[in-house]
């Protein structure tokens, strides 16, 4: 319904493969930080989990690069499910698989189609994990990001504006998890003691989206 008809189909497999490459490097750099965040309110493995999953995904997709954006996301999702484990593996895996499936087999998609794909992915993640807004999970980064994405498109923005807006919203959403009391995942066992710590999963979600924004910006400036 929000789809703007005249958007260019500027999101192709190559762009998402560049994103995968960039995100794997970012996760590599941020792994220790994510694990640190997972220490006081989790089990100190989120960074290692994400690194393992994205390393595996990059290796697999380098060997057999899919040629549609949908297939790229599905393949990354499968790799995450097969190599991450933990809560984040099935959750991110489902997000990307569902998003990829929603994109179908188009060789390139518009920002609006990507947004619809991401919405399908986040719906799948929410259905699987059962988390609501303010439960202090990755959902607190992802839902605001989707909304910002939509708002940017509604305001007439293109791919770059939309993913940039989504990235900022995700970062804000991640920061905003700090004062929350966790109600899902390991942090929930801590009760009030979970307050005052930023959620690792929301933080990694923000990384995925800021890197997407960077990748898109680089693509359009080059």
């Amino acid at each position: 319904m929000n789809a703007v008809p005249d958007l260019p189909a500027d999101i192709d497999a190559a762009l998402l493969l560049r994103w995968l490459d960039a995100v794997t490097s970012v996760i590599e750099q941020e792994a220790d930080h994510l694990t640190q965040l997972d220490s006081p309110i989790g089990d100190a493995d989120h960074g290692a989990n994400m690194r393992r999953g994205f390393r595996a995904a990059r290796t697999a997709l380098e060997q057999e690069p899919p040629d549609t954006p949908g297939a790229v996301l599905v393949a990354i999702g499968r790799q995450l499910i097969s190599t991450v484990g933990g809560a984040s593996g099935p959750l991110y895996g489902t997000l990307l698989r569902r998003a990829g499936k929603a994109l179908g087999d188009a060789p390139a998609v518009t920002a609006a189609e990507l947004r619809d794909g991401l919405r399908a992915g986040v719906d799948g993640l929410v259905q699987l994990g059962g988390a609501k807004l303010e439960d202090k999970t990755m959902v607190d980064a992802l839902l605001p990001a989707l909304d910002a994405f939509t708002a940017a498109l509604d305001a007439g923005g293109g791919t770059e504006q939309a993913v940039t807006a989504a990235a900022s919203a995700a970062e804000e959403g991640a920061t905003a998890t700090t004062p929350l009391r966790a109600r899902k995942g390991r942090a929930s066992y801590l009760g009030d003691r979970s307050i005052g710590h930023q959620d690792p999963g929301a933080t990694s979600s923000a990384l995925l989206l800021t890197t997407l924004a960077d990748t898109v910006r680089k693509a359009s400036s080059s």
Partner: protein
Amino acid sequence: MLINVPENVVPDALRGFAAVHTDLTVDVERRVIVRRGAPYDGQVGLVSGGGSGHEPLHGGFVGRGMLTAACPGEVFTSPVPDQMVRAAAAVDSGAGVLFIVKNYTGDVLNFDMAAELAEDEGVQVAKVLVNDDVAVTDSLYTAGRRGTGATLFVEKLAGAAADEGAPLDRVAGIARRVNEASRSFGVALSACSTPAKGGPTFDLPEGELELGVGIHGEPGRERRAMMTSGEIADVSVDAVVDDLQPDAPVLLLVNGMGATPLLELYGFAAEVHRAMGARKVSVARTLVGNYVTSLDMAGASVTICQADEELLRLWDAPVSTPALRWGC
């Protein structure tokens, strides 16, 4: 830490496990430990798994009268569905497979995915969720009670039932009954160090302890000044007995968290027995040791399971695994 590189801790351990336990089939690459000779004709296969770092759980419980297969994940990270699917295929004799799943978001999600996939491949799968940890009080606003010490009871008793040739619904029924009849409470005297973090997962000053901890190096519900073994026994026994209100003799597990010397653990067991007596709960069997651990965490947990004649018989039934062995 006695490791090579953090990334290889699990495969390194599996190589060692394979070299030592030649009566098990260890697929190091794919991270599946299977009882040699499986599938056993007409026997239900028992598959469990979870993050590594809780050894001997689960790999140490593979063998006659307990698990048919175990799937070790990364340290404190649930295994991936591929492992459970492979294990299910390896142990299914046609009688079906029981997945024993500790109630953590990661374990639940990964085992659920695996169950779907295994069923697609024609394996009949039942699941039991272990959630015995009474320290998680507010299960509406949390991920629910964690699975801890009761996992050992579920694996032993359901394993004995499977060994007797019970069909899948009965084995699953016993597993659920054992879980429902079990409660745990744990205490940490030190945090543990994970290879990924390279140091303690949280800061616990000397002279303080954490009440109500799980088995993943996470802090507990409450920090207190150090208590005596007797006081800790009272708190733990009160927690499990208040919640379960047993009216029959119990199986008792006095479990060390990994770095608790047996000298201290047996002293604690004496205090737990005293505290159980004070609560008029009679203890039918006691097992003492570091069985459901959290790497090098110092501390202990108490698990009780209200037993009836059948469960006692299943407890006493032969078991022959790397970590638990009697009667055969």
